[in-house]
């Protein structure tokens, strides 16, 4: 297995500090709280369509979100609630998008995880996996044209998404252009119901990095410390001109594909392996082991997260929903084209 990091290079980045760890943990906790609320709203019939959770993947996602800086670019995927929050997403926008509020970033035109603020570097995924990688790469091409040499871009993908042609084309292209792009592959063992052995035949997904001519690292996706260390290293390498970086984090999806799916097909033995650990629990234990936070403090944070989420939900619920009679029904940004359509 290729792992550019192992064994000796890890000391290039400073050790994970208490402050950073707690910051990341707080985003994980908030993301989990948000998603529990989303699931509950979905079960109560308050959300149409699907609800897709990132339970078990918060450590990877939070690590990316907090290691990106202001001015960087982030292309999150469906299980990136923690990273989205850490990158600056407002809580209320999450619920606005799920409810189809007129006030939300997609104004009811798109829902659930398909939200973002692309001009702020926070990209809005489409459902076609792999297709966001080249978009983030292109945003970095633009930054290069504009003389911005400090920004990097990061995007995530699942084990299933790595099988797409789009993923392959984008990483190859980013490597050719030597773009400061960090691609984090979260191998949660299942793509919807399809296990790894029906998805790819290489020994380890990180082995693909060498084929693309990019640096590749592995990390334990259930261990926040590992995620913070490895993602810090990868982002640092990207920032310092070493081209695209591929990071593969392993974990287990601790929910169905969406809330409509009970995940009956998941091999139950996996829950008793290291992969099946709940990263939030692992992180909480680590905080206590390090004596960085005790149970009471974590409980305070938990209550605080709940309160923030309840306030955001209440705010979103008071706001107007999308209304067909207010809709422009015009897909064009160009005013004269929109005008020409209206006249007709």
């Amino acid at each position: 297995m290729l792992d550019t990091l192992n064994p000796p290079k890890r000391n290039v980045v400073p050790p994970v500090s208490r402050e950073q760890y707690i910051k990341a943990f707080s985003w994980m906790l908030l993301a989990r709280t948000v998603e529990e609320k989303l699931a509950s709203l979905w079960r109560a019939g308050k959300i149409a369509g699907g609800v897709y959770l990132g339970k078990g993947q918060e450590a990877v996602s939070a690590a990316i979100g907090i290691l990106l800086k202001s001015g960087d670019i982030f292309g999150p995927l469906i299980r990136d609630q923690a990273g989205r929050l850490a990158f600056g997403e407002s809580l209320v926008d999450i619920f606005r998008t799920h409810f189809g509020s007129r006030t939300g970033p997609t104004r009811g035109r798109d829902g659930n995880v398909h939200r973002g603020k692309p001009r702020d570097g926070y990209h809005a995924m489409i459902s076609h996996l792999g297709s966001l990688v080249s978009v983030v790469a292109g945003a970095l091409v633009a930054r290069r044209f504009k003389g911005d040499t400090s920004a990097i871009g990061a995007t995530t993908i699942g084990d299933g998404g790595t099988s797409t042609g789009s993923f392959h084309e984008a990483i190859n292209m980013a490597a050719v252009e030597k773009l400061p792009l960090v691609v984090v592959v979260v191998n949660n063992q299942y793509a919807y119901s399809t296990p790894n052995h029906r998805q790819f035949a290489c020994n380890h997904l990180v082995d693909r990095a060498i084929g693309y001519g990019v640096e590749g690292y592995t990390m334990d996706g259930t261990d926040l410390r590992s995620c913070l260390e490895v993602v810090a290293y990868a982002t640092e390498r990207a920032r310092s001109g070493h081209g695209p970086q591929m990071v593969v984090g392993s974990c287990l999806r601790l929910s169905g594909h969406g809330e409509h799916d009970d995940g009956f097909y998941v091999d139950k033995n996996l829950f008793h392996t290291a992969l099946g650990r709940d990263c939030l629990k692992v992180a909480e234990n680590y905080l206590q082991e390090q004596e960085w936070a005790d149970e009471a403090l974590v409980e305070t944070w938990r209550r605080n997260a709940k309160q923030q989420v309840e306030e955001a939900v209440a705010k979103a619920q008071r706001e107007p929903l999308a209304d067909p009679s207010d809709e422009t029904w015009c897909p064009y940004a160009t005013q004269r084209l929109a005008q020409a359509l209206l006249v007709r």
Partner: protein
Amino acid sequence: MSITYLEAIREAQEKALRDDPRVYIYGQDVAAFGGAFKATKNLAKEFPGRILDAPISEDAMVGSAIGAAIEGMRPIVEMQFADFSTLAVNQIVNQAATLYWRTQVACPITIRLPSGGNPGSGPFHSQSLESLYAHFPGLVVMTPATVEDAYTMLLEAVDIDDPVIFCEHKYLYNRLKSAELPESGLPCHQARVARLGRDLTIVAYSAMVHEALAAAEQLRKEDIEVEIVDLRCVKPLDVDTVLASVARTARLLCVGESWPWGGVNSEVITSVVTHGFHLLDAPPQRINSKDTPVPFHVGLWGAHKPSTQVIVAAARRLYEW
């Protein structure tokens, strides 16, 4: 001094690059080589670093253009042949076409599609895909028929804030010449009456405008005066100009090089029948390429696409109906 349709496309790109620092060109073999058809000849020398050779990755070419456009650039993507753009359909129709609708962020990209048949080009270097792209909301689909439109419409494509599929016809590249390039042209959402007539209207676009013009000249000898509407842009579609023409002639024949099923011709006829049924003295007709892949053999290819003779015969039948 004359300038070809192909040179007009090169000149438009040169002007766009010169006038707007946000413009860059991305495509296979477009830099030092100057493009498969030489539409970017010498541009890499003139604008170093702004003409980028792409790997054979149509999906990533368009995806990256979308990302760059979000950041404020104005990318022009050259597909080597329109046919290969199908490898980027997901990025074009799901990502670029929906971006503004979903996020209120515009996606000003131009995708150049060297389109249509040429002798000996066969099934995979001859396709006319305007109907495919016109199906998807959010895309602008331009189909210039003249040297002047090739120039001004490509500049407009780069200028407007929406993703543009620019279908430039390969058959016209070196066959069509004009004395000089215009300063400005009609806006893309307006069709043009290419020939005034009295007896029937032919609606065409791209290379088929020239087949229709040739047919009209033949029919004139029979005292049938054909009016020709050049759509210029098939999405959005200027139905008003078509209806105004049909109001004068009461007969409609649509000619397009793409396949018949659910295409531009169908849309034009549907619009005219819906909004101007009372204007018609005869059932509207259409001529498309035959509903098979585009054949390789020159004789087969000539019979596959609408020709002047087929248009003349159909127009005569419609006139006599």
